[in-house]
């Protein structure tokens, strides 16, 4: 009996302690370590566009580390490689749902992956904050837990078309639509706007696996002023630009955000980007320095794909941190609810971050850059 009583007391005390730990966790320095959870990183960490995914993952990890350091929290990240492939993303999605420590997802990178997994994450109340999926209808309401830290193609497509016609005085434009969820959606937006502007436009579709564009460039009209490309691999945009020169066509390549990588460097070409060059933003200097020292990188390694991933991860951990500060346990559902209330006064992208009720970033805009002789970009719109 005596033994039973002693055990009962121990058990009762343990139960009280455990229930206390589970119910009341406040993100104060005293118990901030209890504010924890996993940020799932869905990115193409291997495969043909792994350079995008690796940079997104690095910036996302940096954001989580920065937040932990500042707030004494214990958030961690876990990598899920999607290879920018919808099928691979679908394979990984149940693993993320099964991990009950998941508080949100930074990613996926591609719109096709969101189309494949957004429903599952929505049904499980897991926030998905993509740093690069720009297809317009992702925020049409089908995926209630989807957010993005970048503007969408309803801003990019018409914006780019307007820029080519109104600013660059294009009379004839060729659109190369890569057959991906991203490329198709964007090309449709651009074609619709060009039709509105009454500009002659011809669209050619190409398979994602295509690598040689000589035959396609031969089809481009000699009177075409621009070739608008929707590739997600800038080496393809560069290949088209050089092939145009070789075949003595006057058209200049205008790449969408997928082309905003250092490999696209032909002088005089244009590219639109969903994020500014953060190297020109003084308040982002600490993040840049942190990135370079943590991952042994240089300025040249920082593309516009990384910083939005920093913001996406920051949105998730800040939301979870607010849950903890309110005295609750940060889980996926409570973090999702908090993400809608996101208000970052000045993000690493240089401006404030808040979301519409559909998950789009408020006040987002695209930036148009022109490539200079040394391969650098000059902001022109």
């Amino acid at each position, binding site marked *: 009996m005596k033994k039973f009583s002693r055990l009962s007391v121990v058990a009762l005390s343990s139960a009280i302690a455990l229930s206390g730990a589970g119910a009341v966790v406040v993100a104060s320095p005293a118990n901030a370590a209890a504010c924890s959870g996993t940020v799932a990183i869905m990115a193409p*960490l*291997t*495969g*043909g*566009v*792994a*350079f995008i*995914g*690796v940079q997104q993952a690095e910036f996302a990890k940096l954001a989580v580390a920065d937040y932990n350091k500042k707030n004494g929290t214990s958030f961690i990240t876990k990598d899920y490689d999607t290879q920018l492939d919808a099928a691979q993303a679908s394979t990984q999605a149940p693993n993320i749902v099964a991990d009950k420590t998941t508080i949100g997802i930074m990613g996926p990178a591609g719109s096709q992956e969101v189309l494949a997994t957004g429903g599952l994450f929505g049904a499980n109340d897991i926030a998905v904050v993509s740093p690069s999926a720009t297809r317009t209808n992702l925020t049409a309401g089908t995926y209630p837990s989807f957010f993005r830290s970048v503007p969408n193609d309803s801003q990019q497509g018409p914006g780019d078309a307007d820029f080519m016609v109104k600013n660059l005085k294009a009379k004839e434009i060729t659109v190369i639509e890569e*057959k991906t969820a991203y490329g198709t959606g964007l090309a449709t937006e651009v074609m619709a706007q060009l039709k509105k502007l009454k500009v002659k436009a011809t669209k*050619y*579709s*190409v*398979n994602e*696996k*295509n*690598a*040689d564009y*000589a*035959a*396609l460039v*031969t*089809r481009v009209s000699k009177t075409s002023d621009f070739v608008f490309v929707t590739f997600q*691999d*800038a*080496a*393809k945009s*560069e*290949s088209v630009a*050089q092939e145009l*020169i*070789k*075949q*003595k066509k006057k058209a200049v390549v205008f790449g969408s955000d997928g082309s905003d*990588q250092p*490999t696209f*460097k*032909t002088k005089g070409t244009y590219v639109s980007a969903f994020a500014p060059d953060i190297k020109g933003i003084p308040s982002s200097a600490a993040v840049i320095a942190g990135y370079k020292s943590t991952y042994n990188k240089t300025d040249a390694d920082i593309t516009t794909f990384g910083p939005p991933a920093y913001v996406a991860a920051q949105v998730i951990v800040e939301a979870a941190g607010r849950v903890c500060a309110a005295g609750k346990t940060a889980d996926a559902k409570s973090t999702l609810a908090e993400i809608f209330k996101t208000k970052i006064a000045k993000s690493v992208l240089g401006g404030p971050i808040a979301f519409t009720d559909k998950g789009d970033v408020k006040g987002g805009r695209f930036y148009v850059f022109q490539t200079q002789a040394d391969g650098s970009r000059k902001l022109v719109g």
Partner: protein
Amino acid sequence: MSYLGQQLVNGLTLGGVYALIALGYSLVYGVLQILNFAHGDVYMVGAFLGYFVELALGGPTKSIVPVPIMLFLMFAISMIGTGLLGIVIERFAYRPLRGSSRIAPLISALGVSILLQNAAQLIFSANIRSYDTSSFIPSTLGFSIGDVTIDSVRITVLILAFALMFALSRWVNKTQVGRAMRAIAIDRDAAVMMGIDIDKVIRWTFFVGAALAAAAGVMNGLLLRGVSSGMGFVPGLKGFTAAVIGGIGSIPGAMAGGLLLGVVESLTQGYLSTNFSDFYTFILLIAVMLLRPNGLFGKKAIVKA
């Protein structure tokens, strides 16, 4: 007419690259009767080696040697290095499986393919590298016949592809190793009984096949620029298709299959559909298989009763 001419130039250049890859498949199949599905990734390694030779020589804009010498070294070092890799692959992934079921080396080949891809990403990083060809060979350099333009890179690739194919034909037909290779392809047991060092010939086969793939990889880098760990899959598949169309195991067949595939791909993109050129390419493969099951240059196998 000039449009057709331009598409033929595009197709022949592409076909030259496919033919060099196809030759590797055919050489190995001819000698060992195995499908070396790691061949596309060997091509990728060749492209990377060419890139790093270019960097070692000062990079595309600050080369420490004249451009022709840089190109020669890019091809030579890449071909030798990748050829040696071919020997290593044969020694560790295929030789232990000699005499086993036909499926075993196939699985081993797929394993080597994934291993090479991931090793390349680990060693060279995930970034897409660029040969930046236009920095040392201006895109405007070349000549025109009417409206058909042939730039200097295409000229280089075409000449080199045909030169390598010619050299391979001479090597197979005129050298002792080449004759031994043909003997093994016809009847391995008889070749062994005649005193042919079968291991030596197989080593040569893998070396030459991989070296040709490396040349194709460097050509791809010069033509299309992008070099990445995942770049080998599609060209590998196309090279294999070309080898099958030509008649796998046949050297002239691999050459003809590659050139035909490149031209068909270019013409379908030019006249039919830019999106479904692969569809027409594989329709061609099916048609050839139906009409000539052993490929255009393949011979019927004689099987002992």
